[in-house]
Structure formats: structure tokens, C-alpha cells
């Protein structure tokens, strides 16, 4: 684990623990003695920040620093997650990593090959067994579901194996989320046609 990640985790854990301890302490103190912190004390503190330029500067810079630390930390974590979402293999010249999103792009392109499929939403995972693909499919109503799903599984599997050059197991799960009727399809087509039939000066008549 990188030193910055450790520092980031320690920093955030400390800040959150301190906030938690502070809130618990306040709750305990308030339940026993309500005169410990008066509203006037808070007003005085705010007044101090209001009048003193240096304290305002320190306050602003602390805020800025906190934002920068948060961004860097988020970037570290996101980068780590992104790095994990790859399929990797080694060549003599060095490692090759293929982002799973690239494989998803590839699968999305298969929609063009099968006209029965209206939409394809893939989710690719690299597991110890091999590559696992979940496909959420929107079909057109005229499609024969068992036939189209088995064809889709075959095509997806062979495409992944061809393009990635992997020979391990590729598991394709298909989930049909919607079947679009032909009427819906026609409605979408008819709308622009209606607009085309409007003629210029169509409302004018002879007197």
C-alpha cells in the first residue's frame, strides 16, 4: 500500500474520530451542565474570525487544503479501483492491460449484427474462473427468444475470445429486460412523416 494512501486513511480516520469524540463530549456535557458553553461564546468566536484578517486567512487556507487532500485521496482510491478493473496478460516487452470498459464497448457494438436486438447493456467482470458477462437486453417483439439468446451468447463469446486472445472460460448471462413492440417502433417512425406532409401556405383558400 502506498504511503499516501495510508496517510490519507489515517488523516480521515483521525478527523472523523475527533468529530465523533467532540459530538459525544458535547452531548454528555450538555446533559449534565448547560452553562458550560454559552451562545455568547460562539458569537465571540465568530466575531474573532470576522475581525481578524490572519485568522480568516488561516481558516480559508485550511479549507482549501482540506479540499485538495480530499481530491487527491478520492483520485487515489478511484485510480486503484480503475486499475483493478482490467484483464491483464504479459508479453516479452511488458504487461498489457485491457480495461473492462473496453470489452463492454466491444460487446455494445454487437447490436448492429443482430437486428432483433434493440439495446444491449453489458457488464463485464474478470473472476478467477474467467470472464463473466452480464447482458441486459432489450428485444424487438418479433424475436425468437431462445434462438436469439443462444446466438447472442455464441457471438459474444467468440468475439471476446477472438479480440482478447483468451482461451479461458467466458460465461455469458443474458437478462431480457424489455421487449419493444412493433407499434412502439412505428410510432417513432410516423412522427417525422407527419411533419413532412405540412405544406407551406396550406391554410390559404380562394375567395
Amino acid at each position, binding site marked *: 500500500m502506498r504511503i499516501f494512501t495510508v496517510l490519507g486513511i489515517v488523516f480521515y480516520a483521525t478527523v472523523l474520530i475527533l468529530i465523533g469524540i467532540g459530538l459525544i463530549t458535547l452531548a454528555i456535557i450538555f446533559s449534565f451542565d448547560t452553562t458550560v458553553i454559552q451562545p455568547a461564546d460562539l458569537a465571540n468566536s465568530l466575531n474573532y474570525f470576522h475581525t481578524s484578517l490572519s485568522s480568516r486567512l488561516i481558516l480559508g487556507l485550511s479549507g482549501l487544503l482540506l479540499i485538495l487532500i480530499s481530491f487527491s485521496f478520492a483520485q487515489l482510491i478511484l485510480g486503484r479501483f480503475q486499475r483493478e478493473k482490467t484483464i491483464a496478460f504479459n508479453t516479452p*516487452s*511488458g504487461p*498489457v492491460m485491457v*480495461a473492462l*470498459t473496453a470489452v463492454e464497448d466491444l460487446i*455494445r*457494438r454487437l447490436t448492429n449484427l443482430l437486428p432483433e436486438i434493440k439495446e444491449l447493456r453489458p457488464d463485464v467482470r474478470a473472476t478467477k474462473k474467467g470472464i463473466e458477462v452480464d447482458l441486459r437486453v432489450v428485444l424487438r417483439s418479433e424475436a425468437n427468444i431462445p434462438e436469439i439468446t443462444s446466438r447472442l451468447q455464441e457471438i459474444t463469446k467468440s468475439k471476446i475470445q477472438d*479480440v482478447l486472445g483468451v482461451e479461458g472460460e467466458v460465461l455469458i448471462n443474458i437478462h431480457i429486460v424489455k421487449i419493444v413492440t412493433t407499434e412502439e417502433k412505428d410510432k417513432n417512425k410516423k412522427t417525422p412523416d407527419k411533419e413532412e406532409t405540412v405544406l407551406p401556405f396550406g391554410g390559404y383558400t380562394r375567395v
Partner: protein
Amino acid sequence: MIKIHNNVISSIASIAAQEIEGVHKVGSNCKGDYLGRIIGRTFPCIKVEIDKNEEVFVEIPLVIKYGFNIPEIAAKVQENVRQALEKMTNLNIKDISINVQGIERG
């Protein structure tokens, strides 16, 4: 002593990578490229590291064209980049790592 800036190595690698048929472009979005993301412009991002023994490590993000075999393209890019860098800089190239970020969307 001649020192070659990392940007020069990065440029040579970028050009050599794009010479290979099947490479759509060199990927973008470096880690920490906040400005690029905010303004919506991203720049090619090739990581170059040179260790104490003057050995060079290069990481190239790529977007591949649809229909090409990824391992084949990656191997060709590695070979072409290695040749170009060795020819032009005389540096000792240790590792050329390829990171396929995406497939070109049609």
C-alpha cells in the same frame, strides 16, 4: 552528458504507437488531470519513468479500432515503440506497458 526529457520520450512513443494499424488513438485522462476534465479537453497521456540504472519504463494508454485482435496490436505497438525509442534515444528500454482503455465507438 545528454539528457532527454520525459516529454520527448512520450512524444516518440505516441507517434510510434499511432503508426500501427488498428490503433485508433493514444488514450487520455491521466490520473490527476483535473483541469483537463473540468475544461473538457484531454491530452494524450503516456507515463515515462526512468530509474537509477537509466532503464526506461513506458506506459501507453490506447484506444483500439473495432475488429482488431488486442494482443496482436499490443505486441506490435510494444515492438514499434521499443524500436523507435532505441533508435532515436539510445536508452535502455526495460518495460513497455500497454493499457487498452477502450474500443473505438462507431
